[in-house]
């Protein structure tokens, strides 16, 4: 589905007349179920850049990243991701595990952060261009030394 359609539907479904999706309580113990893509405003793909971040794409804080608390336009999940990158560069997979969010959701949120220049994301290794011999040798020596 296009981003626009997803957004429209997300808006429509929270528009008041009918209940927002996932708001029903299953039982008292479970609490309200929030559909994962509610955190992304219904979007299932990252913003205009349209990049699909690889699981091992590395995410670092952007040069001009303000403190997470300074920006109220960011949701708690956005801020959680920023906090996770604060100490060290993280892969997309690690961010998803660290924030306890599905990878697809993390990709959308990262797209937002990338657009706002809060983070930088490394490009994945293109399939036809794998690391040169020197890197591979380094990996082998590193493994031996473990």
């Amino acid at each position, binding site marked *: *589905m296009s981003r626009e359609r997803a957004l429209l*539907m997300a808006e429509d479904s929270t528009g008041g007349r009918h209940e927002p999706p996932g708001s029903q309580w299953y039982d008292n113990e479970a609490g309200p179920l929030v559909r994962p893509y509610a955190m992304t405003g219904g979007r*299932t793909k990252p913003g205009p850049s349209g990049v699909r971040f690889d699981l091992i794409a590395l995410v670092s804080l952007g040069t001009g990243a303000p403190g997470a608390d300074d920006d109220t336009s960011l949701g708690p999940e956005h801020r959680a991701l920023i906090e996770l990158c604060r100490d060290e560069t993280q892969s997309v997979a*690690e961010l998803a*595990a660290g924030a306890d969010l599905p*990878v*697809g959701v993390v990709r959308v949120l990262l797209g937002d952060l990338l657009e706002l220049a809060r983070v930088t994301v*490394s490009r994945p290794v293109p399939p036809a261009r794998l690391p*040169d011999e020197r890197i591979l040798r380094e990996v082998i020596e590193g493994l031996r030394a473990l």
Partner: protein
Amino acid sequence: MVSEPSDEDGDTGALALKILVAGGFGVGKTTLVGAVSEIRPLRTEELLSEVGQSVDDTDGVDHKVTTTVAMDFGRITIRSGLSLYLFGTPGQDRFWFLWDELAQGALGAVVLADTRRLQDCFPAVDYFEHRHIPFVVAVNCFAGARAYGAHDVSRALDLDQGTPVVLCDARDRDSGKEVLIRLVEYAGRMYTARLLDSVS
């Protein structure tokens, strides 16, 4: 010709490499990842609705299926700015589409095999062979399983000549390291051979 690594690769200059660990259900994929990883294996979840997004979407967001499939992964830091990520592939065949994403840009794969049910690793062997992704077969030597030699396993799996078969204990760190070393060596040989092919 050896090209100098350029800084235009990614803003951080850091490099991450991906190795897949495949094989049948319960063959020890997560055990192997855990044995060599410096972090406790982490679990990431992929939403099935997301991967199916190009073909579904007749019902709108309200009815999106939100089944998840979990992938376990671990990390080995070779040095600052160079790390290896190991991903256990989802066991069930119906998650093939996730393999495509995982395999994208992967350095290579380890196919774990159990000689008591060798057929469980056929799909993984086929998958990597067809896509020309370098892989090694690691036979997880379970206690009580009859011991077969690497050559027997290679023949039983009808592997392409040169595909390494390693006997291992997935619980053992050194054994796991050895498997990874064999894979990286083999991947290096494969890529070099391909490079030579392309220039000759």
